């Protein structure tokens, strides 16, 4: 058994967090993974308890006097449970001690990867694909910006999307891997681009030069790949002297807005498209006038909501669209149930991802809404597949799709 130092990347504050769990079990009530896989080892409380016990057996007073006495099985059970988590931060939200579980899990996963225990075999292809193709979908770089050419040829956007390395615009639209490559989701990028055109914003995209933000490697513990991607992106954006980077993917936004900033200070502004679009609406550059008579419900992506506290912006956009009736799900805003796609769960535990998104579709259906709206291509993808699998009457939409119907 190779050496694993579970606390390798943990700070004193992380270790204090682990000791502070009051075992109140509030996380049992909200953990979306535990909702679909009722094994207690998966609950944050149980993981913290086991981790605390392992660390004390390794380094506590008795370990100091009589030597460490941790059983290999104990560590292996903990590690397998650790990866079955979408780091959605729901447990952090309800924890009375405010224990930063997502940060803890990511740091421990990084320790596992550096000691050769992680990521899971199914997740290894993600990092490899990012190294080879700059995206986790194993798609060629040259295809990354094709959606824009195709949309222009089909007349779906009024202006050819500019390459930012040529037009040197101050606003960069960072499309992200999912919205660039998934044919069903390029819609999000096309709509956003057209909204920018309508608002008269000069912007550009990176096309084949766009690199993955490194979110998934970071979540699964491959810190090295994340750091390489992050530094390359920061260097590129800095060289291009962009002022604002706009994201359609909540995961990319979280990564650049928070995780990149832990690496270094960023010389540009990072905003999610819901913030950017709301600014344009408030500046009257976009005026939603046409009625869109729909009963909708909104799914808060974890990375946008709990991680970035952007709950009101998407709702404000939806409220400004005439005819829209927004019905909230029982679990919304900070209690929004995760769709299960994040944190490496989609690649590592596809059946758990499916069960989680199915549950979210049940939540949405119970509101009686006709359409389910979100603001993240990754959630969009996961929920869309669930709608198809469950043969649900719901239609999945991105915020941009409804807005463009109202302003065009």
């Amino acid at each position, binding site marked *: 058994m190779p050496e694993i130092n579970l*606390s390798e*990347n*943990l*700070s*004193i*504050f*992380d*270790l*204090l*967090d682990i*000791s*502070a*769990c*009051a*075992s*109140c*079990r*509030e996380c*049992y*009530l909200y953990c979306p993974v535990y909702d679909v896989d*009722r094994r*207690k080892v998966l609950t944050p409380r149980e993981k913290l308890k086991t981790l605390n016990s392992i*660390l*004390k057996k390794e*380094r*506590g*007073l*008795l*370990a*100091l006097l009589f030597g460490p006495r941790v059983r290999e099985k104990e560590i292996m059970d903990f590690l397998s449970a650790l990866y079955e988590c979408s780091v959605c*931060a729901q447990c*952090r*939200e*309800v*924890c*009375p*001690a*405010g*224990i*930063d579980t997502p940060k803890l899990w990511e740091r421990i996963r990084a320790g596992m990867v550096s000691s050769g225990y992680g990521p899971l075999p199914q997740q290894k292809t993600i990092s490899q694909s990012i190294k080879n193709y700059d995206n986790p979908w194993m798609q060629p770089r040259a295809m990354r910006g094709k959606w824009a050419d195709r949309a222009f040829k089909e007349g779906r956007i009024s202006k050819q999307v500019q390459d930012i390395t040529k037009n040197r615009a101050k606003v960069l639209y960072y499309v992200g891997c999912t919205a660039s490559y998934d044919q069903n989701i390029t819609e999000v990028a096309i709509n956003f681009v057209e909204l920018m055109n309508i608002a008269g914003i000069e912007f550009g995209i990176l096309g084949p030069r766009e690199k993955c933000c490194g979110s998934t490697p970071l979540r699964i513990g491959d810190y090295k790949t994340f750091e390489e991607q992050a530094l390359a992106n920061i260097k590129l954006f800095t060289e291009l002297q962009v002022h604002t980077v706009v994201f359609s993917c909540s995961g990319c936004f979280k990564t650049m807005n928070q995780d990149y900033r832990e690496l270094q200070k960023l010389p540009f502004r990072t905003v999610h498209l819901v913030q950017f679009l709301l600014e344009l609406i408030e500046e009257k550059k976009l005026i939603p006038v046409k009625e869109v008579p729909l009963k909708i419900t909104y799914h808060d992506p974890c990375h946008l909501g*709990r*991680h970035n506290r952007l709950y009101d912006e998407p709702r404000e956009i939806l409220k400004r669209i005439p005819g829209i009736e927004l019905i909230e799900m029982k679990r919304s805003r900070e209690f929004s149930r995760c769709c299960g796609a994040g944190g490496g769960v989609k690649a590592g535990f596809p059946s758990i991802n499916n069960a989680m998104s199915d549950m979210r579709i049940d939540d949405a259906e119970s509101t009686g809404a006709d359409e389910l709206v979100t603001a993240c291509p990754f959630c969009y993808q996961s929920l869309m597949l669930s709608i198809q699998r469950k043969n649900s009457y719901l239609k999945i939409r991105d915020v941009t799709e409804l807005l463009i119907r109202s302003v065009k």
Partner: protein
Amino acid sequence: MELLSYLKYLKLGVYFILLVGISSHILVWMDGLVEEREGGIKKFLRGIFFRVPFQTGIMKLGLSRWTAHFLIFLSFLWFLFFYWFPWVIKSSGLNEKTVFVLHDLFSLALFSGISIAFLRRFFSRKDTRGEFEDFYSLSMLFGIWLSGFLLQISKIQSIEKTARKGEFFLGKFGTWLFDNMGVNLSFVPLLYIHVMLVLIFVASIPWTKMIHILMLPLKEVFGRENAGN
């Protein structure tokens, strides 16, 4: 009174067990990387004057949960100072009558807190009701409360009815009840039980979920500013 003559040594033993338990945590922390602490003095002051005394972390879990926890927390503090650090209460300037009234009030608060905590578990989802560790802690608290209450009654009963003074509503009511039932409580066995329960409970703090009594305030005051806060 043999046991009480050894109380000093028993207390020392409890301190030793506490120290061993806490030192295990400290030894683990010593292995941690140094991280810049965000929040600075603001977080420190907020922790000391707001988050710890008002138990704000638990507030988001609902009123019944907060009430139960807050009542137990307040009474725990009172009894901790009353019996283990009496000089704090003596130097507070409170007169004897006020101290006795407060003692009864905190006893009532402890009982109410424990009752709500038990009831909440009874009505909560099965898998969140708690395990042995959870019921052990609550039962110990209840045992300490009950033995303390009976002890107080037995103390009052040992005084001639006409000479009784100093007891207040809870003790008075309890004594009236037991007097009317014709039950005379025996002071010494109750004292043994009460002291032993308190010592066992205190000694078990670092080894059970009750470690949060020490760790949570520490985290609130000296820990990192977490997004979850």
